[in-house]
């Protein structure tokens, strides 16, 4: 009997899971009560485990007879298996979106202790532990909870997220293909060094985040309750990062990150009266950042004569210089016999060994070493006083006061470049920085049930942030070679000379501290009146007022920017139940602000929401929703003649969705979803120039130069720069369970976007706006024996970009009233005149991943 109930329960459970295709990790995190002996997550496994199934059957676990020890019922489960994965197409994209790989896994494990009915234990009433994903999956977790009645409750969770992000550039790197640097004499090269294209994402991530959260509550049901907690968050791993002004040029850097937080919590809850609680909480967060930057290994493409690897820089240059690494990058007066004249010279010599790095002339600019270290420590103590009371009849009130002072220090900033930049052989920055974040916030809410059907409520939020800081960074101290002929080289052996300070954009040239200040104040009030019109209908109307003040002082000067934004808005909420099995609710929100910090900060906001759920039968549910957010900012520009006109910022996000769930009996269920999302944003924008002239498909103006604005500036525009991303989503799932030992499901999900955007740059990656991401799947679970379930799962992951990169739409003119037309329109003239081939400039990114997961679920 118990077995029959158990089987029925796990079938219902799997059915619920399958309806949304929730991953196995989520299944474990929200497991059913252990006492139900649910066969959950009979997940996945390897071929070896498939073969082992027969052995396991012979061992026949006795799931129906739980282990009882010391008056505890102990139940354990293990999900052992693995993945078999095959990927074609872009492995980088697969890892970015999926990142499941072949190999054995401990897919899940649970352990529970519950007391035998009627028994009492001095230390422990319940214990639950579970984990999953270990052995190589990108997401892992471990969870532990235990408690003792009125004495204490403990809960802890560990989560690990391995992130690989390489939304690779494929055929669309910043450096166009076919560019080479001659090896040997420029007039008679003996070889060519291809100017390396960066085909990885310049912001590639290969990182892992480990999050631990623990909490202990003492005397949870007493008048005075104590809480302590500890959380840790570690983020580490290598990433790529572009670097500006690394020596003479820009360079791609490798960043090795290790950022972590340790958060400590102590709190006392005091319940002085019934339905009243006062809480004092102290939270101390400590942040440690120990990142450092060096040259990305891929940058070291040449070497000095002594074998020192070196980088030429300019990893992303596209338009200038017209030739990769020109002779202008060398101190020609120190090149010796390698320089004859501006057309006859030798920058690179042949490598000493075949396949080795070419040898660069010692008088040419290179980066041989770069290190930036900026260890930062921040401590944020926060005091919080919170109260809540509903002791007064028909009145519910609560609020909190918080005070936080966060101090961030970077006592030892260090940046050092070595190589050659003209005469500069090294440049070093040192210094220290301090920043503080002072925050006071007060929240208060009051709800008064004035009559049986009328309720009034008010909520006030106030916060005041002050954030002063200063950076005392030295200007770059340089060590130079003499600027005399023959000596401006990287291997000049004499004493180096102090040179002029080296500067980075934005930093001061003198050794003065840079002060900065940011402040922000919010005051928000929401006043609401609610009316319970009938037992089936409620209405509420909210008037919202918000005052937002922002002040920022930048650089060294006293100049500051202060703006105030006053917003007034109204929100009408309505909920109605036409019948006991049909519910609907919706809201209309309209707000107007008299100012904005940025163009994307809306001056006018409208939001419409509607949700409905209809259950015509107990086994049938139809749900639908509509959500529309519309935001405008039509502030007028009056200060830049060439770009006069309205900002014309418009964005909207409109969603409509429908979900039908049918589960007529325990043998079948169906779930069908459809959603349409219309995401659009548009702003009048100027560009400095148009598409790069050095890339295929470059646009050119009537003068033959890259797209130029006809205005007094060299800007292009304003034009209506926009993105339109209409996205369709559909999913279908069906489950089938003909008997008590077999269960299966299959489904399909697709998210497809067919959008476009304005063409601003031939390098831009647009493929994601013409893409489809689909994931069909099949699950089978077979109860081989009570307590032993074999499951197989097949998932297909397909991502395809239906079109090439590069936006398809161009502007017919440079005015604010420009008409947007397809870029390949022959009549297109003026600053666009795009000649992009129909095949596009880049290959679309796509991949196909087949993931087979086999597992056995074992209960003991």
């Amino acid at each position, binding site marked *: 009997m118990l077995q029959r109930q158990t089987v029925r329960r796990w079938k219902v459970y799997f059915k619920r899971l399958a309806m949304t295709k929730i991953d196995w990790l989520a299944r474990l995190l929200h497991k059913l009560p252990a006492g139900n002996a649910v066969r959950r997550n009979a997940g996945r496994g390897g071929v070896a485990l498939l073969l082992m199934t027969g052995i396991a059957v012979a061992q026949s676990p006795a799931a129906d007879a739980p282990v009882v020890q010391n008056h505890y019922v102990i139940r354990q489960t293990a999900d052992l298996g693995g993945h078999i994965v095959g990927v074609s197409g872009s492995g980088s994209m697969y890892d970015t979106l999926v990142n499941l790989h072949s190999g054995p896994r401990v897919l899940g494990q649970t352990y529970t202790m519950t007391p035998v009915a009627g028994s009492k234990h001095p230390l422990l009433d319940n214990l639950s532990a579970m984990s999953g994903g270990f052995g190589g999956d990108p997401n892992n977790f471990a969870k532990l909870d235990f408690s003792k009645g009125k004495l204490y409750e403990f809960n802890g969770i560990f989560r690990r997220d391995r992130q690989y992000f390489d939304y690779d550039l494929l055929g669309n790197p910043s450096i166009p293909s076919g560019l080479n640097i001659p090896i040997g004499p420029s007039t008679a090269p003996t070889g060519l060094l291809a100017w390396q294209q960066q085909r990885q994402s310049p912001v590639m991530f290969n990182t892992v985040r480990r999050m631990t959260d623990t909490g202990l509550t003492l005397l949870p049901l007493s008048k005075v309750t104590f809480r302590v907690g500890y959380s840790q968050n570690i983020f580490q791993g290598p990433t790529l990062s572009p670097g500006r002004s690394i020596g003479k040029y820009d360079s791609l850097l490798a960043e090795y990150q290790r950022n972590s937080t340790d958060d400590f919590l102590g709190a006392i809850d005091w319940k002085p009266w019934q339905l009243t609680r006062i809480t004092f909480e102290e939270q101390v967060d400590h942040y440690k950042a120990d990142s450092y930057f060096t040259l990305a290994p891929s940058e070291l493409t040449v070497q000095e004569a002594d074998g020192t690897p070196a980088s030429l820089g300019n990893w992303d240059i596209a338009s200038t210089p017209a030739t990769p690494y020109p002779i202008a990058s060398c101190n020609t007066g120190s090149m010796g016999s390698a320089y004859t004249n501006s057309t006859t010279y030798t920058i690179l010599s042949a490598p000493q060994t075949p396949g080795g790095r070419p040898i660069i002339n010692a008088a040419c600019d290179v980066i041989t070493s770069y290190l930036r270290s900026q260890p930062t420590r921040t401590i944020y103590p926060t005091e919080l006083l919170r109260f809540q009371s509903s002791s007064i009849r028909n009145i519910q009130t609560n609020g909190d006061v918080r005070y936080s002072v966060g101090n961030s220090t970077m006592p030892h900033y260090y940046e050092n470049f070595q190589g050659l930049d003209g005469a500069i052989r090294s440049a070093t920055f040192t210094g220290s920085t301090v920043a503080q974040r002072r925050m006071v916030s007060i929240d208060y809410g009051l709800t008064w049930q004035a009559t049986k059907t009328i309720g009034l409520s008010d909520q006030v939020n106030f916060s005041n942030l002050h954030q002063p800081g200063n950076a005392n960074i030295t200007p770059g101290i340089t060590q130079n070679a003499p600027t005399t002929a023959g000596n401006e080289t990287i291997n000049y052996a004499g004493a180096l000379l102090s040179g002029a300070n080296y500067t980075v954009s934005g930093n001061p040239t003198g050794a003065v501290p840079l002060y900065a200040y940011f402040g922000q104040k919010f005051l928000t009030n929401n006043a609401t009146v609610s009316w319970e019109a009938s037992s089936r209908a409620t209405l509420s109307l909210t008037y919202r007022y918000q005052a937002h003040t922002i002040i920022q002082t930048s650089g060294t000067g006293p100049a500051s920017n202060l703006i105030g934004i006053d917003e007034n808005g109204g929100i009408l909420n309505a909920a109605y139940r036409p019948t006991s099995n049909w519910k609907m609710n919706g809201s209309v929100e309209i707000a107007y602000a008299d100012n904005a910090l940025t163009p994307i900060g809306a001056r006018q906001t409208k939001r419409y929401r509607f949700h409905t759920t209809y259950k015509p039968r107990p086994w049938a549910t139809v749900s639908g929703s509509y959500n529309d957010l519309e935001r405008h900012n039509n502030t007028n520009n009056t*200060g830049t003649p060439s770009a006069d006109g309205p900002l014309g910022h418009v964005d909207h996000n409109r969603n409509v969705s429908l979900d039908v769930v049918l589960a007529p009996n325990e043998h079948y269920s169906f779930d069908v979803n459809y959603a349409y999302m219309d995401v659009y944003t548009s702003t009048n924008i100027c560009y400095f120039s148009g598409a790069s002239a050095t890339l295929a498909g470059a646009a050119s103006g009537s003068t033959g130069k890259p797209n130029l604005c006809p205005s007094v500036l060299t800007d292009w525009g304003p034009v209506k720069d926009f993105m339109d991303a209409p996205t369709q989503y559909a999913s279908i799932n069906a489950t089938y369970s003909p008997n008590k030992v077999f269960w299966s499901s299959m489904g399909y999900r697709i998210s497809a976007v067919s959008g476009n955007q304005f063409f601003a740059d031939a390098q831009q990656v*647009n493929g994601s706006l013409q893409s489809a991401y689909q994931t069909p799947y099949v699950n089978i679970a077979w109860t081989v024996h009570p307590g032993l379930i074999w499951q197989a799962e097949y998932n297909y992951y397909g991502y395809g970009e239906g079109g090439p990169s590069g936006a398809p739409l161009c502007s017919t003119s440079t005015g604010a009233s420009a008409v947007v037309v397809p870029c390949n329109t022959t009549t297109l003239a003026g600053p666009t005149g795009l000649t992009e081939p129909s095949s596009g400039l880049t290959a679309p990114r796509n991949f196909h991943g087949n993931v087979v997961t086999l597992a056995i679920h074992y209960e003991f």
Partner: protein
Amino acid sequence: MKRLLSCIALIALVPRLSQAGHLYAQGAKKQATLVSKPATVNPADLVGSDVCATCHADVAKKFDSNPHSKLAMEHGGKGVTCESCHGPGRAHVEGGGDVTKIVQLSKLSAKDASATCLGCHAGAHPNFERSPHAKADVGCTSCHSVHSAGTEVALLKVDQPKLCYQCHTEIKPQFSQPFHHRVDEGLVKCTDCHDPHGTFGANNLRSTADQNAICTKCHTETRGPFVFEHAAVKAEGCVGCHTPHGSQNARLLNVPNINQLCNQCHSPVSGSTVHGINAGSADVTPCISCHTMIHGSNVNPAFIR
């Protein structure tokens, strides 16, 4: 001074006012501290959970695993039992199980059912009555089931995120887009960022203790404070540039082209219109090729270091 005296008088009144509620509840059977719903109850009308179990055996057999009642079961019936929520049962029993003489939460409006739960849980969910869910007539029993929960986590009817998707069908597709927070995968829960019981913020959003955006709890490197803040990050919030649930754009950006994103603010069009932005560069080289520390920097006002 007057203001100060008024405040002191108000504070002094609070205990007095609270006594009204306390007196109101005096008739209730003395139970655990948290179990103190202010309602006038005659102890003689209570029958005890053992009597309930004689007819409702299917419910009673789960008492030892139900967080509401298991403590009571372990301590001689002291604590939350049937009549804590369903009211006195004597009339119901004496009426031969007359369903009109017992409180059936499933028959109550969402508001009334929630009021029953908040009789004990208001301390944990003090904002609920002002929350968007309450205004939408979504009550406690819309998501929680005391007797037949689908999960042991907070007695939810179904686990997250499916529970949330049942109404928020427009959110579900967002987590199926190529780039998304790993909610369906189980790494992140809806409740990591939102508190469905209401907060003082918009959209039921949580915040960190120091009132930073909740995003910085995990994305700690963006929390600051930085000497040089990117004002828009703090003032517009993370959603000024990112779409947190899911996006077809890498890094969950609002638009696929980083330059379009930056130039929405940093182009001459907005140079004299919007405060502190100036003309910007309006260039086409990817902005983050130079401005890598775009969330804020301690070293460089232009976010280059």
